[in-house]
């Protein structure tokens, strides 16, 4: 593929990753922090930003490791372990750097960064990138798009939950119960995007 067609493909992947193939609402990855940290918009915003950043960076990093190291050696089956190790190390490193050079940002993201290590959407993005055989440039679009998609979904959920806080919810459904139902409704709504773009 030429560079221009790669770029336009990356753009399509980017937009479809946000809407039609939202990693949270169509694959239900990263549900645990999605339910745990969506009680207020402020916290959801911080976590969402951290996810965008880490997801883009780690999917690129993992692309390099997969195509430069694992594939030539025939060790593709090791990608799960490798990706997790790389994500964990990367998150540690980023935490250190932010802590050193931008205390206000660390203050905002600080507690969420370590949480991200175990966010399965991050690992999921890296694995999809391999399964779908994306090139490096397309991976940029995919990583960024998935991150933004996850960010949008958790912000929307936090907004809904803040309004729900004062509603009378049957006691059996309070907390995670009603949140899962809302997530289901949101997923249905996102299916509406499916006709807009034929994702890859």
């Amino acid at each position, binding site marked *: 593929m030429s560079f221009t067609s790669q770029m336009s493909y990356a753009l399509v992947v980017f937009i479809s990753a946000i809407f039609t193939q939202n990693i949270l609402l169509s694959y239900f990855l990263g549900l645990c922090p999605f339910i745990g940290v969506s009680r207020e918009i402020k916290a959801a915003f911080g976590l969402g930003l951290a996810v965008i950043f880490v997801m883009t960076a780690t999917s690129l990093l993992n692309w390099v490791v997969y195509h430069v190291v694992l594939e030539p050696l025939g060790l593709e089956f090791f990608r799960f372990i*490798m990706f997790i190790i790389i994500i964990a190390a990367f998150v*540690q490193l980023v935490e*250190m750097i932010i*802590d050193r050079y931008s205390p206000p940002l660390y203050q905002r993201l600080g507690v969420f960064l370590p949480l991200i290590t175990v966010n399965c959407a991050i690992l999921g993005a890296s694995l999809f990138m391999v399964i779908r055989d994306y090139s490096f440039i397309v991976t940029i679009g995919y990583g960024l798009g998935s991150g933004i998609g996850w960010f949008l979904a958790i912000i929307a959920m936090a907004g809904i939950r803040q309004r729900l806080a004062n509603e009378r919810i049957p006691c059996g459904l309070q907390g995670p119960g009603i949140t899962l139902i809302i997530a289901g409704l949101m997923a249905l709504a996102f299916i509406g995007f499916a006709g807009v773009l034929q994702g890859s």
Partner: protein
Amino acid sequence: MVLTVLIAVGVVSSIGAGLAAVLVVSEHFFNDYGPCSITVNDEKEFTVDGGKNLLSVMVGEKLFIPSACGGRGTCGLCKLKVLEGAGPLLPTEEPYLEKDERESNVRLACQVKVRDNLKVEIPKELLAIREYTCKCTDIKDLTHDMKQFRFELIEPQSIDYIPGQYIQLLAPVYEKSSEEVYRAYSISSDPAEKNGIELIIRLVPGGICTTWCFEYLKVGDQVKLNGPYGDFRLSKTDAPIIFIAGGSGMAPIKCMLHEMRNTSNKRKARYYFGANKVRELCLVELMRQFESELAGFKFIPIVASRDEEERWDGEQGLVTEAVERTLKDAEQCEAYLCGSPGMIDAAVEVLKKLGVTEDRIFYDKFE
């Protein structure tokens, strides 16, 4: 096949090792905040390497900040005021701080990272807390389950404390315990004597530290303790005093009585001391001696139930019953209680009924 396995293991380990190396190097690089100076209460100043949390730095300087969780941010005890250089409040601290604490810059020491010059304010008492290395010089049986231990201070050589305060004694790892534990005991010695302390310890069945004291600690052994802690102490008023204690609750009261004798305190004082049996009364002779030396002091031992063969012509029953029977001028008194939670709760009830207001009841509960 073997080759594949070897390559696989080799690749995974080397990437893992490489990442670990990167992290270690960058930790060293990024976590180097250079020397930071810490000023405590505007009087003590020291310089440390930045990057660690404030609690560990303070302990490293032998400033003992109370902490039960060891710096994990779960007990909320290591509160202190950081006036300058701490940065904004962290989400991990918020649950432990009240509104007025936040406004007066109270922080959790274990969560504050030293990255700048800090100005810290801690209560004066904490500044006086030291770790002491001591030698056990005497162990005396008081009753069948209470012993009096004397420790001579080796390093530092003297201790200043307010009568009523306690120390934390370190029980080392021994046959029945696989970890070091600290337990709190009230100081019972004469405060005039600065180079040693005395503790009265009652055996707690199955207790790690008391079992060690009773069965393993020998005269001549070295022990470590730190302190003094606590705000159980005599007030500066002239109100008549009621002491109520049971068992090893004797310790802080004995210390206060020494102090009253040393300062020729003329306050009227009555000391209700409860024991189950006559043979569980201890230090009666010393108390009688205090009675002859302190004009206003009276010692009232009370025995709950007398065995047939025991002779007893003093008060009988529960301490609280004796207090209720004999106390006439309760409204003007201040009460100082020390002993088991059960006894203290019951005594507080009775005192309130007799007209002692809550702000004049002070106690040290052994829990």
